[in-house]
């Protein structure tokens, strides 16, 4: 073809065309700029700072950290604090299982029998959680205290020995965790149950499945992504939680969140605290990776 070579001075046809093309391509990037900046400044940068601190050596007295490329801190803290990791793991797991057991019937009932009042019931479920996390946990301290209503009632009716106490034990921490993270279990379960096509359920009944078989063969398998999402959403924050242990747990049964908090705020051991946080992060990511492998990454977008 013997067309003239494209000239690129302003005002030429070719120049205009390029500008229009640019104008068409730019808006998505411009629109995502605020969120991108937010993520960068408040998530990526702190994360990188935390990662870098794990390799630094900090002076507990001055709090000044110097990069020493100390790779030994990670194995060191794992070695030192693995009992607290195990305690956190056990407490968070028990609390999560309790939450699943409690919220499944609730979510099931709202999804299948809530009718027009579904949203009302969901809000009723969430109302206690409009109150601050700390205050809710403090109320649990009040409820479970030795002079609180529960123990007073039990002891008064000789249902518990007079020296029985809950506060300061692992039981109180698990109760607090289970209570505080209940909506994180109930909501994904509700979403999973709600989206089950009722016609599929009818098909199961049509194909000779009684109520039990329809539940076991259709409802439960279709809820599994929701159960897994609920598990992750509950387990991960409960695993790193320190407020419940602080308020309800007393001095024994220390959880890893409390250790991290103490390392940062009391011992000024920033490298140790950062290292423990990284280990916690890795465990959480492992959970999400497992979820993606087992149930596909698309369900993550849908539930998390």
């Amino acid at each position, binding site marked *: 073809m013997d067309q003239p070579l494209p000239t690129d001075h302003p005002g030429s046809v070719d120049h205009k065309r390029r500008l229009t093309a640019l104008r068409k391509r730019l808006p998505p990037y411009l629109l995502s700029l605020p969120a991108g900046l937010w993520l960068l400044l408040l998530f990526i940068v702190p994360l990188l700072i935390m990662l870098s601190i794990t390799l630094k050596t900090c002076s507990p007295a001055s709090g000044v950290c110097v990069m020493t490329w100390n790779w030994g801190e990670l194995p060191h803290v794992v070695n030192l604090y693995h009992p607290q990791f195990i305690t956190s793991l056990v407490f968070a797991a028990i609390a999560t299982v309790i939450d699943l057991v409690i919220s499944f019937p609730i979510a099931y009932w709202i999804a299948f029998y809530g009718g027009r009042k579904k949203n009302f019931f969901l809000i009723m479920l969430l109302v206690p959680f409009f109150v601050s996390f700390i205050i809710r946990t403090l109320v649990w301290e009040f409820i479970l205290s030795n002079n609180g209503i529960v123990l007073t009632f039990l002891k008064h009716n000789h249902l518990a020995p007079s020296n029985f106490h809950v506060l300061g034990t692992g039981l109180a921490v698990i109760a607090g965790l289970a209570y505080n993270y209940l909506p994180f279990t109930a909501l994904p379960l509700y979403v999973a149950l709600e989206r089950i*096509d009722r*016609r599929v359920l*009818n098909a199961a*009944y*049509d*194909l000779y499945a009684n109520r039990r078989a329809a539940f076991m063969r259709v409802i439960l398998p279709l809820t599994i992504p929701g159960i897994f999402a609920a598990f992750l959403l509950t387990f991960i924050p409960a695993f790193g939680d320190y407020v419940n242990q602080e308020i309800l747990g007393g001095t024994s049964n220390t959880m890893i969140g409390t250790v991290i908090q103490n390392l940062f705020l009391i011992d000024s051991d920033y490298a140790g605290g950062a290292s423990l946080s990284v280990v916690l992060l890795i465990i959480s990511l492992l959970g999400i990776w497992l979820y993606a492998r087992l149930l596909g990454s698309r369900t993550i977008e849908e539930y998390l």
Partner: protein
Amino acid sequence: MTTSVNPIDSPRTTSSEGAPRANVRLEHVTKKFDDVAAVDDLNLDIDEGEFFSLLGPSGCGKTTTLRMVGGFEEPTSGKIMLGGRDVTYMAPYHRDINTVFQSYALFPHLDVFDNIAFGLHRKKVAKAEIRQRVGRILEIVDLPGFEKRRVNQLSGGQQQRIALARALVNEPTLLLLDEPMSALDAKLRHQMQIELKSIQSRVGITFLYVTHDQEEAMTMSDRLVVMRHGKIEGIGSPKDVYDSPSTEFVATFLGASNLLAGEVASRDGELTSILLTTGSTLFVPTSRLPVDLKGKAVKVGVRPEKISIAPVGATVASNRNSLRGRVRVSTFTGVGNQYLVEMPSGTDITVYAQNIGEELAPRSGEEVLLSWPVEHTFAVTPMESGSDSEELEI
């Protein structure tokens, strides 16, 4: 609930060809939702092995009827008998009935094999037999070797066949089909209609088919009912219901009809003459007057394809009705010509003329003579006006 079938209790229809056992029988079945009767005192007998269709517009009660037969809905009153057994309040999983749902409702978490085998597993059929039966039914629906596919990898037509296979593999006494073709495109639908009919005649199971598509119902059914407002408007073979519609609603819902208002003028044995409001006189076989004729007002009807179109001066045989008019619109549709012929009164009559390559098509504005055989003329009681528009909107 007793499981034995007492032969004395079995209702029998007194049909002329022997006496086939009534496979499904609905007796005075009524279903009310908030005091509105969706199904109103319905009586129905469906013979064993029959392809039976419930046809009607949205909200006519056809799906509610199907759901009651399937056990997904309980009638407010009345009785549903299946093979002589009262199943009115029986749970769906105890009924020997399977359903092909409108949206197929395949189990998304199971592959094709497990979808089809679902009912057999529940009935505790031996594993080897399940494998063999699933394989055979997949051949019947023309999808052999699809066992391991995931259902969301299938096309709409394939999903529809799997839904059909999943129901048929259980060899039910009755198969319910709830608008199973509504999600398919027109060409595939047509192909599936023929296939479904051939599968039905091969397996010999009674099919109860719900549709709002009159062509679909006529293509496949042995018999059909046209429903409106929860009641039966017409029942019979597609040809009977089409050629002799029992009501104005049936005449307009099932195919197209030209309906002209008039009054019964005189009855002369086999023929009844009707004086149209326009002044012309038409003849109707007395046997085809509506049974519920009250007073004199009737509407005379003729199907567009029964009418011949001729130049004004043409002679008309004595056994034909004729009317004069002027061609207002002439449209070529490929298979034929469609004319809108304006009567002197202003009403239009639709005429279909087949494209057999012979006649000279009259042009718009030309005066023509329309004629059709008296035996293809029918009469219906005029419908109360304005009662139907809202239900067709749903």
